[in-house]
């Protein structure tokens, strides 16, 4: 039986008081992150369902409207995100092997890739705005000479909602990655304790995975 009183006892600073040992803490944190990822999948699945229903109702409209999305921009973003997942994985590995410098570099590269993603997205969205391809009642692409199918505004509504929500997750990810990078620089992570790096990695891989599904469905389908 372990005493649970308030007397000070030697334990690493990262071990929180309600856990018995670091394995329990790390294991709990990982399970918690996986459960959170399940909630994210369910949230995005509502939007994917909406997409499939629109495609079921208006197949030609979707195929016609999505031709106006930039496959180049989407393609660049796909490569950028996959690269960022790679750098993220390397960052986790570096933390696991006590390699502080490499961990910091990999996290920085991941954040940089995320930044490139958002910049490309900015240009994509600007182009849509400038051509009147806006969601719902703001849609006015015909003013710019685009003769799109009748319910194209619904497609752009779905497009902006899906990529917009994904973009929010990228931004939040950049914030969390920055915080983990600061902690890594301070030397808080080691082979005994790299849980935050691992868990932010899990989150980042999910953000990448959502994009892997978004890109073909929105940009590539024929």
């Amino acid at each position: 039986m372990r005493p649970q009183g308030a007397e000070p006892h030697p334990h690493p600073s990262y071990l929180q008081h309600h856990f018995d040992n670091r394995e329990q803490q790390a294991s709990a944190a990982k399970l918690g992150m996986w459960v959170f990822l399940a909630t994210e999948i369910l949230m995005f699945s509502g939007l994917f369902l909406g997409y499939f229903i629109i495609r079921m109702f208006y197949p030609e409209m979707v195929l016609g409207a999505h031709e106006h999305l930039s496959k180049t921009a989407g393609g660049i973003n796909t490569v950028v995100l996959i690269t960022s997942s790679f750098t993220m994985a390397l960052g986790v590995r570096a933390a696991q092997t006590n390699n502080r410098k490499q961990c910091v570099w990999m996290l920085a590269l991941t954040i940089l890739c995320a930044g490139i993603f958002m910049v490309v997205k900015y240009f994509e969205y600007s182009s849509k705005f400038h051509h009147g391809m806006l969601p719902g009642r703001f849609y006015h692409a015909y003013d710019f000479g685009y003769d799109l199918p009748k319910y194209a505004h619904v497609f752009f509504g779905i497009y902006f909602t899906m990529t917009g929500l994904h973009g929010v997750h990228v931004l939040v990810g950049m914030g969390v990655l920055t915080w983990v990078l600061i902690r890594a620089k301070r030397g808080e992570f080691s082979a005994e304790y790299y849980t935050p790096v691992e868990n932010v990695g899990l989150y980042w891989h999910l953000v990448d995975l959502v994009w892997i599904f978004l890109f073909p469905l929105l940009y590539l389908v024929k």
Partner: protein
Amino acid sequence: MSTSTTMDPHQTGASSESHGHGREPSYLVAKPGLWSWLATVDHKRLGIMYLVLTLLFFLVGGVAALAVRTELLTPEGDFLTAINYNKMFTLHGAVMVFLVIIPMVPAAFGNFFLPIMLGAKDVAFPRLNLMSFWIYVLGACFFLYTIFAGGLDTGWTFYTPYSTTTGTAVISAVAGAFILGFSSILTGLNFIVTVHKMRAPGLTWNRMPLFIWALYATAVVQVLATPVLAITLLLLAIERTLNIGIFDPKMGGDPVLFQHFFWFYSHPAVYIMILPGFGITSELIAVHSKKHIFGYKAIALSSVSIAIIGFLVWGHHLFVSGQSELAGVLFSFITFAVAVPTAIKVFSWTATLYKGAIDFTTPMLYGLMFIFTFTIGGLTGIFLGALSIDVHLHDTYFVVAHFHYVMMGGGIIAAIGALHHWWAKMFGRMYNERAGQIGALLVFVGFNMTFFNQFVLGQQGMPRRYYTYVEQFHDQHVLSTWGSYVLGAGLVWTAMYLIASLFKGKAAPANPWGGASLEWITQSPPIEHNFHETPVVTADPYNFPEIDRSGTGRHHEH
């Protein structure tokens, strides 16, 4: 349960946990000052704060209900115009669903007792728990703002196209519900990880109290269903602001799609509302009849099956929406199926009571009340699950009676029972038992007086959400309204003697009821770290001494 010889939960004297340790300050006073409460990571303090807020919103929702019922005393408009009547029942529904019933048992009783029943010091993520609480407060602020911004008149179900076109404060209400959803998700996530990773040595899955199984199944539903509500409400807000057209037929969308999205969450949500109540009832029935629960594994697994099957029945809210006949048949069939694990519980509780040493304490009265009123509610759900019958009963008072019998007669009754069962443990005081029994009687009589004849009203054709009605329904409405006053009086009475006990109640022993789960070996109220030493569990939590039927007064220990 046997832990060691110094930790016998059947000692009803001084807390066995305090032997040799002196009386350490309880969690209530361990750290002083308002800030120590507002920034606490102690699951017990968070549980109490959730309890206070959910009960406060229960009062708000209850007052709205009394306003609705009072307006219905006569068929004419009395003090509420038609649109204000709509706002009033919307307020009642939205507050009760999102601020009271969904959070109450998990966030208040679950937070307080889940770690203790598992022999842990706290939940897996105490800081996340604190965040969950403040997210709840933020969501509640959005709801309060909605009231002051002119209210909401769509009903708590927000059906399109009305919700996308009405001028009332839809966005703030939807934002509030969205935010509250995150509080629910994070609480569920915390509980799942705590149950998996923080059980005391010897506490196997099959030695967990059934309340924990219930909270676990609830947490799975919270985590999987609530995100779908989040995206539904987001789409509704976007539809309202941007008119993307996903729910608007003029723009190529489908209003019934909203109903599918909405009920995909909201049907599992009703299982979030009731599963913890099932867990509580198992505790009340077993402890207050000093008899080992019958069918432990069946009850545990039935909670999990209800959680799973509950995801497959949402279409029974859409029988008359124009969905296909095939879909209707499938949803109807699966709706009948969910009754099976539910009935397993009712039969198990009844079998537990048989030859038990039943003590008609207030918690037992609420436990018995639950079995009675929930069964009525559940059976009438079967009526509604039958396609042909639902055509006549959809959107009538029959539906209103059904869900009040399960949500209030089930969920709230169980919560009040839990409050009494664990009052001594949470606050260290005993309430007056006679006052409790009177309160239970008033609540039981008032509840049935209010809602039973609503089944008849609905079957006779009275539509729901109407502030006026034909003269033939007048007497029944009067009966129902007077019933609501009796119910209100019973609840006020209950609040009064419970609050009085905080000042004048007898000091509570560690184990006033002779329970055998881990919370009964802690001090009443518990110390900040729950246990002086991590308990080691060697038996299940319903291991009561064998009931003495010899008439000689001697006890036979196992």
